[in-house]
């Protein structure tokens, strides 16, 4: 789109919006109140059931054999010895289910169990189902796999040069996907810029580290006569039960209607459970072969191999500005080390480019994105999917520009704000935009103007902003299906049951759904029961990812509740001799509007005569009494429900949500990723100190303002903001997957260092409410948008404290010290040994699995270490 046409369109959009201003309602009884999560009691007392807590009669334990090689062809697999071990019921390999799958329709490149090739250390080769975990583990040792080793690729820039020995035969140069976008005229805009900053930023690979390891229990109904497996029930720790149902159907070659997926409590996802993980299908394959239920729970190490986290990202960024700090153009070249499979990779690389837009007003954008395959576990979606590493680069560079042009870092951000409602140059529609207020809030609360640059030596403040989608406007499966559908049923005693496909993974979606329903019905929260994420019972919802649930499932819930409320109102209005729109639902009563205030007071004063207390018979007579007395000005919620059921026969309704066509983005290739019905905004200020002798960085406080549209449950929103900041701080300072020749050196929570409570700073969450015109009660997302700002805020604070600009995350003490030394021209610190994941160029030159033959000290005859050892070798 050219700039002029866009300006015209944006002007029209603004006029339309101004005419459509509805007064925002603020008088809520349940929305906007800080309430405990509806599942909090079970979780805090330990009675809540996660997948691994479940067992069914006859259940077996599954264990998976993983590849010890980063890249090898499987010549043969011999499972006969394992099968003979006492207690082993079944051993399955790739041949038991040879259909490929993958979360994206364009990326069906994975097999639940490897078919002909393994592509990373940890790739799945075989699975044993046995009566105990230890027997299954022993059986794994008896499986003999003959591998032919292939050259392996560990560095994305090296991998892109590959012409032979490809990781996937249909992906030349090991390139999963590349995109090249140019919006408006970047070259001309750079030519017109007064100052251009350029730099390379590198963000190392991080992972979700959710508390609950993945776990799946699969159980077939076995035909009692012929013993064949029939319907399948799967309990799994998943963010996407419906995708799981679909992929199971694909791989197991069963109709979806024969498969029921149930999501029990999930102990955190962060994207790591937002696609179908091999374990979920392997459990099904093993259960079918064993004709017994099979449960598999990953060890923590296996979670690291399953991974799907944030890829190591190389960002070459160029920003052009005018002297007043206005951005004229941005050019980004992004290379992502995607690992061995596609996963969400195509989406990740598109988000990295698309979300350059919609935060600031950038009139010209050039983006070149490369998603590269390497012989490491697949990367996928992780909190802040695609935007985080590019945001680190962008906000750091903006800070450099501010310093260069002598503009206050908060001010340069204010000078580049969007003017919503608008459509950005890359086709993203922005309606509500709380960023200016977010910046104002953190600047005020942190006393930025007083303190910036005036703190004691070694201490500093940094500011950064970020944003995120409230759900993708285009689902990954191209279809016209609504993204969320919700059913509501109300019983005669006024109990509301909400059937939602939304997956509560700890973020609180069940609570959100209950709140939206209770607010709409004006009933108390404990009347509402949420039945969620069970493919047999609940209507389709595409899952808990891309921060879509509050916006989309919330809207679907709202619509379903409004539909049911309409039915109640029609019946109640008849009883009360008034029009349905004269009725107000509140405090478990239905009142005529003019009496709303009085009615509310009356219910406070009088004890409510309810069927639950008085019993069915009395309620009947009560209704009779009311009937006898003629039309009323007020009914209890139950009475109104009974009236509606009597009138309609049953009381149920459906609501669904699909993003509006205007929000679905532009027409260019890859335009489907990035558009969202609404964007959340965040601004953060971090205060840090740096120890100049050790390079240790301490984060003292983070002020984090987040525009979430409307906070449906403020305490929950604050929790999400604090969690995002904390997770961002982990990536900024301590977390990093360290690789050595394709081998993950820190596959555990001892060596993969998420921050502990000791170094967690005070986080001051500040809620900014921009009241989105399309969100449920004005709400947008609140769980992801804040993460991306934390990393550059800390980087910028380090710059303020000691004047060094860090281009590689995490900012470990040694990287900080090396930068400090470089700045002072002091003795340089050698960091190339040991920790640099790019270092190996040859595949395990010092022995390792190339030379490994059999167990123990039996090494390959060509292994140099063995030759050296031979003189003393008495064997």
């Amino acid at each position, binding site marked *: 789109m050219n700039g002029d046409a866009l300006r015209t369109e944006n002007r029209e959009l603004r006029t339309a919006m101004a005419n459509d201003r509805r007064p925002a309602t603020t008088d809520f009884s349940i929305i906007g109140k800080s309430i405990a999560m509806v599942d909090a009691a079970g979780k805090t007392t330990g009675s809540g059931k996660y997948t691994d807590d479940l067992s069914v009669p006859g259940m077996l334990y599954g264990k998976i054999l993983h590849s010890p090689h980063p890249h090898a062809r499987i010549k043969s697999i011999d499972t006969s010895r394992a099968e003979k071990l006492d207690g082993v019921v079944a051993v399955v390999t790739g041949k038991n289910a040879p259909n490929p799958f993958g979360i994206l329709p364009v990326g069906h490149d994975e097999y639940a169990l490897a078919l002909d090739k393994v592509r990373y250390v940890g790739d799945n080769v075989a699975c044993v189902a046995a009566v105990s975990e230890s027997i299954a583990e022993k059986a794994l040792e008896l499986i003999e796999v003959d591998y032919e080793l292939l050259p392996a690729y560990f560095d994305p820039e090296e991998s892109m040069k590959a012409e032979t020995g490809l990781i996937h035969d249909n992906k030349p140069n090991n390139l999963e996907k590349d995109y090249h976008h140019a919006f408006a005229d970047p070259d001309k805009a750079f030519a017109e810029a007064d100052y251009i900053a350029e730099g390379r930023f590198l963000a190392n690979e991080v992972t979700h580290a959710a508390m609950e390891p993945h776990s799946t229990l699969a159980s077939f109904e076995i035909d009692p006569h012929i013993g064949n497996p029939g319907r399948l029930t799967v309990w799994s720790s998943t963010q996407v039960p419906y995708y799981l149902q679909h992929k199971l159907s694909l791989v197991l070659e069963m109709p979806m209607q024969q498969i029921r997926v149930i999501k029990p409590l999930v102990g955190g996802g962060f994207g790591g459970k937002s696609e179908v993980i091999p374990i979920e299908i392997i459990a099904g394959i093993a259960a079918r072969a064993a004709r017994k239920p099979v449960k598999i729970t990953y060890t923590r190490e296996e979670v690291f191999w399953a991974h799907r986290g944030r890829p190591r990202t190389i960002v070459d960024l160029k920003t052009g500005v005018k002297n007043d700090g206005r951005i004229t153009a941005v050019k980004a070249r992004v290379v992502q080390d995607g690992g061995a499979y596609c996963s969400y990779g195509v989406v990740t690389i598109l988000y990295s480019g698309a979300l350059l837009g919609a935060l600031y007003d950038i009139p010209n954008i050039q983006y070149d994105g490369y998603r590269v395959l390497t012989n490491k576990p697949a990367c996928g979606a992780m909190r802040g999917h695609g935007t985080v590493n590019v945001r680190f680069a962008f906000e750091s560079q903006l800070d450099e520009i501010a310093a260069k042009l002598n503009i206050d870092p908060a001010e340069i951000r204010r000078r580049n704000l969007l003017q919503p409602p608008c459509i950005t140059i890359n086709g993203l529609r922005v309606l509500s935009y709380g960023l200016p207020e977010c910046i104002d809030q953190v600047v005020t609360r942190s006393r930025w103007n007083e303190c910036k640059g005036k703190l004691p030596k070694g201490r500093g403040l940094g500011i950064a902003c970020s944003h995120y989608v409230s759900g993708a406007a285009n689902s990954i499966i191209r279809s016209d299906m609504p993204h969320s559908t919700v059913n509501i049923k109300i019983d005669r005693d006024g109990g509301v049951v909400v059937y939602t496909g939304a997956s509560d993974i700890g973020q609180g979606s069940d609570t959100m759904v209950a709140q939206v329903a209770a607010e709409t019905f004006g009933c108390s929260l404990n009347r509402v029961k949420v039945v969620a994420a069970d493919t047999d019972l609940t209507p389709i919802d595409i899952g808990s990812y891309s921060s879509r649930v509050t916006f989309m499932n919330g809207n679907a819930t709202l619509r379903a509740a409004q539909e049911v409320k309409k039915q109640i109102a029609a019946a109640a209005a008849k009883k009360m001799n008034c029009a349905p729109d004269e009725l107000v639902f509140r405090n478990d009563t239905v009142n005529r509007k003019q009496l709303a205030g009085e009615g509310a007071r009356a219910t406070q004063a009088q004890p409510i005569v309810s069927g639950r207390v008085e019993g069915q018979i009395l309620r009947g007579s009560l209704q009779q009494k009311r009937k006898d007395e003629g039309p009323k000005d007020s009914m209890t919620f139950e009475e109104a429900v009974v009236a509606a059921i009597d009138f309609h026969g049953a009381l149920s309704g459906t609501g669904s949500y699909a993003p509006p066509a205007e929000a679905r983005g532009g027409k260019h290739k890859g335009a489907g990723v990035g558009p969202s019905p609404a964007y959340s905004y965040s601004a953060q200020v971090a205060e840090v100190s740096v120890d100049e002798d050790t390079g240790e960085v301490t984060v003292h406080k983070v002020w984090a303002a987040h525009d979430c549209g409307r906070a449906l449950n403020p305490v929950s929103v604050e929790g999400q903001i604090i969690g995002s900041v904390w997770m961002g701080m982990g990536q900024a300072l301590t977390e990093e997957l360290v690789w050595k020749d394709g081998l993950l050196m820190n596959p555990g929570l001892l060596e993969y260092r998420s921050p502990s409570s000791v170094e967690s700073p005070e986080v001051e969450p500040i809620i900014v409410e921009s009241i989105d015109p399309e969100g449920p009660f004005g709400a947008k997302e609140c769980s992801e948008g804040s993460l991306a700002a934390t990393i550059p805020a800390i980087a910028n604070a380090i710059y303020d404290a000691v004047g060094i600009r860090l281009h590689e995350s995490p900012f470990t003490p040694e990287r900080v010290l090396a930068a400090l030394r470089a700045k002072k021209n002091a003795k340089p610190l050698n960091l190339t040994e040991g920790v640099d994941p790019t270092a190996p160029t040859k595949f395990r030159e010092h022995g390792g699995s190339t030379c490994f033959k059999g167990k123990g*000290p039996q090494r390959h005859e060509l292994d140099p270490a063995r030759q050296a050892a031979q003189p003393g070798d008495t064997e």
Partner: protein
Amino acid sequence: MSLPEFKLLRPRNLADAVGQLAQHAGSIRILAGGTDLLPSMRQKLFDSQYLLDIRHLAELKGIRPQPDGCVEIGALTALTTIAHSDFLRQHYPVLPEAAKTVASPVLRNMGTIGGNICLDTRCLWYNQSFQWRKSCGFCIKKDGDLCHVAPGGMKCWAAFSGDTPPALLCLNADIEIASPAGVRRVKLSDFYTGDGVIHRKLQLNELVTRVFLPASSSGYRGVYRKLRIRGSIDYPLAGVAIVLKRSNGHIEDARIGITAVNPAPLLVKGATELLKGKSLTEDLAEAVGDLAAQTAKPLTTSALTPEYRREMIRVFTKRALIAAAGD
């Protein structure tokens, strides 16, 4: 990862324990706090037929000051008890200082001083699951014949990663070792071999029972500085313990111990001589820091690069000295 099968033996008393240990020598391991042993067993680093559970032996617990001025600490005394002991804080402050930095509060409640002294050496190539180790062809410390950290040599460089031993070395501690032959007492500084595989001089039928701190080490100021990435949980990536006695503004005596940068905790040789009789200056602290850094031989056995960890031994020694010598 499942625990391998084993038989748990629960001796009634110390004599019983020593007997059972000797009876199954070679196929038995001692379970004290279990904080290191049990995760390692899951990783199949040990596959003993028996575990000797001595957690309930009261005679091996407690801090007992002796009439001659020395103090005796039972090997099963929890690290939390040591960190909170008023007696130790007053007379041997470096030990509780070091003890309180071990792992996290929960692990300190379980972990014992004896376990911390006997702690297995650690390495990124060793403290991994069976499957992981198999992927790299195993290593010289367990099941293999090659050191991935120093592929040229045949020595294991796994780092000793206990926090309290450098403090105990500074305090000239002795340990008591029991076996069917009776008890022997050795200087802690003679207990470690400096080799990553067999890192302590302890026979298969022997058990560490007590730690003795001599009266002559009482009343020293003590400081422990630990390099770690997180403020809790982590093993040391480098650690420096210092004891120091002043008189008339001069250093009367001082000792420096370092940990996590060699296969054994070590006293820094020459530090005492360098410091004795002098008043501490920035230059002197720097010189002693250099000496400590020369003693450290870290390799890529853990996170952070060897050069950085050695550098931190220097910085931490200097800082600890200044802290210990200051007013």
